[in-house]
């Protein structure tokens, strides 16, 4: 599943939920947490459940941000939504491996109770505290259900007691730390939304930065940012061409019985091949670049 962009949609806004699949995002995050006031938690939960039950969202993947494990809502969220098989549960304020395991265990319990297939829904811890950043690798490798990490910079900067800026110097460490932790655990990692919905240039820069740091994709709170994020996280034509050249070089090397081969003076090793394969698979999924392979 390709997840370049993830779009937050308030769980209590029927008009947005109805149009979830039309907004261009690879995945939507139905939000039961910050976007929903305590008085509306139950209504939003029912609305999101019914959207998942009745709406055909086409190829758009569904993620649900439930309430954190220190609230009275999170178990009810999982009870209501797990039967409708969201791809991921986004677990806010995950500060430790234990937080992730509490959610993981309860999800397994619900799956067993309802006779659901185990592990269909993954877990994506939302890292938005200083402790969460420091525990990132432990969280990322907490259980096989943890499929990705997600950086939440707004709450994190509050916890760090610093100001959130557009340039994002204050979250540089957290970004790099999360990417390293997630990649070390062999899972994906997603960048925090860019929150100025009127800064059309800023979103480009912020998305490019995230891609260059190694993030798999980026979240958004505005549908206006989705296309930019998709564009930045899609392979470019030159990247695709290079990937095909790598695969062609490998094919030739095998034909000639060579163990190692260079392309443009650079040795092609396993990580380069793996990256080329990922690029080609993404390009094919997006229908861009060469169609001859």
């Amino acid at each position: 599943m390709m997840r370049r962009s993830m779009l937050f949609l308030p769980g209590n806004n029927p008009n947005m939920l109805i149009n979830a699949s039309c907004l261009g995002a690879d995945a939507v995050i139905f939000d039961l947490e910050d976007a929903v006031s305590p008085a509306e938690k139950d209504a939003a939960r029912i609305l999101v459940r019914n959207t998942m039950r009745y709406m055909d969202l086409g190829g758009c993947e569904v993620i649900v941000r439930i309430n954190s494990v220190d609230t009275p809502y999170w178990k009810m969220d999982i009870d209501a939504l797990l039967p409708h098989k969201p791809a991921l549960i986004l677990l806010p304020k995950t500060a430790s491996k234990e937080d992730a395991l509490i959610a993981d265990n309860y999800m397994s319990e619900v799956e067993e109770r309802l006779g659901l297939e185990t592990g269909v829904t993954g877990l994506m811890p939302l890292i938005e505290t200083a402790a969460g950043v420091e525990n990132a690798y432990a969280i990322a490798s907490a259980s096989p259900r943890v499929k990705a990490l997600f950086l939440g910079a707004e709450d994190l900067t509050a916890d760090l007691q610093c100001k959130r800026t557009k340039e994002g110097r204050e979250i540089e460490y957290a970004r790099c730390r999360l990417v390293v932790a997630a990649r070390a655990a062999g899972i994906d990692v997603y960048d925090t939304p860019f929150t100025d919905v009127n800064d059309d240039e800023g979103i480009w820069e912020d998305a490019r930065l995230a891609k260059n740091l190694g993030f798999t994709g980026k979240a958004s709170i505005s549908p206006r940012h989705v296309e930019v994020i998709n564009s930045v996280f899609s392979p470019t034509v030159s990247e695709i061409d290079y990937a095909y050249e790598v695969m062609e070089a490998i094919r030739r090397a095998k034909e000639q019985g060579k163990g190692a081969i260079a392309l443009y003076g650079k040795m092609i090793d396993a990580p380069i091949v793996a990256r080329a394969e990922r690029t080609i698979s993404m390009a094919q999924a997006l229908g861009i670049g060469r169609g001859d392979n």
Partner: protein
Amino acid sequence: MNKIVKSIKEAILLSNLKDGMTISFHHHLRNGDYVLNMVMDEIAAMGIKDLTVNASSLFDAHMPLAGHIKNGVVTTVQTDYIAAGLGREFSEGIMKNPVQFRTHGGRPADISTGKTPIDVAFIAAPAADPMGNCSGKYGKSACGSMGYAFADAMFAKKTVVITDNLVEYPLQDYSISEDYIDYVAVVDAIGDPKGIVSGTTKITRDPVGLVMAANAAKVIEASGLLKDGFSFQTGAGGASLAAAKFLKDIMLQKGICGSFGLGGITGYMVDMLKAGCFKNLLDVQCFDLDAVESIKNDPRHMEISSMQYASPASRSAVVNSLDVVILGATEIDTDFNVNVHTDSNGYIMGGSGGHSDTAAGAKLSMIIAPMMRARLPIVTDRVTCVSTPGKDIDVLVTQGGIAVNPKNAELRQRLKDAKLPIIDIEELKAKTEKITGTPRKIPKGDKVVAEVICRGGGVLDRIYNVK
């Protein structure tokens, strides 16, 4: 010689208006217009009855007209558009004769060919001189172009200019010249500037509207029409304007210089002119202050009459040189017929305006509309009223997919090649009804309250009263 009269009443007397005659008005002062009401009140006070009012559009500012209809002062209405408040009155059957809806091109065609002769035209003018040379560009009630008033002035038996801004003779840069004008009446105010033009028109922030707009721009890009010399018209609705913004980005990125932007002109089209997307704007009506300023100051921004804009009786009309038009719809059916006259409950709330004219003329006619409005699906089996026939519509852009009229197989293939989200219109209808359910048919009344007259003549459809 002096054409100035003491009052509107004197102009009416001198023009020899009698029972059963036809009077006309333009709608450039839109919802800020005072002139139609002032003239009608005077006529009613003079005891004249059984008039036909031919107005290029009617707004809710003209609600007093309903009273004149009920009192028998007005017995026939010919127009291109009626706003929702007044439309409701007509839909509830206040008038014995059906409203005659024409298009912005059909109206001047029928005036110029004598099918709908005008006895007295009343021309609200933001600036005029004592001989009647007049313009919409200057004065406190400036409206910019006066495109819809030309046919009235040129073909009416008598023409009265009504102004709140009398200037020295000769008015420079006039729109309508003195040789068509019989009398000039000066009043305190011809309209409320706040209702005449809006401030800077803003594009939508609605995410669904933006998705539709982005898709609309991509359709144009993929159509093969977007190249140097390109011509374009779009509406003033939020999503249509946003489409213009996206289109501007594409044109600038690709270095495409179009020929002209057409239509009711907004600040967005002015921006496109200034950015070099077009060489000219051809303007039959200004929608906002930016457009008014531009037509006043920029010689590339040119005023055109509704005859030049869209009349099928003209030797040539600009709509026939148009590449792409973006239009709205209250409903569209699976045969691509479009309704812009009524809402889904059958109440009159609009009119063709230039809809059918541009759809007939443009190489690519695009409808942009959401899949549903207020729980009601936009795509239906049969529209409540056919305003523009499906044969003139090429493509429908919604947030749930792009439906191409099967008559335009080439466009479908182009959009497919561009990997745009194409959907069959029947499938789009089914997809929407899965969310909204299938609405029950609204029963028609038994009285025809309006006839939609085709731009080339003949009745295209009839609108019935709402029970």
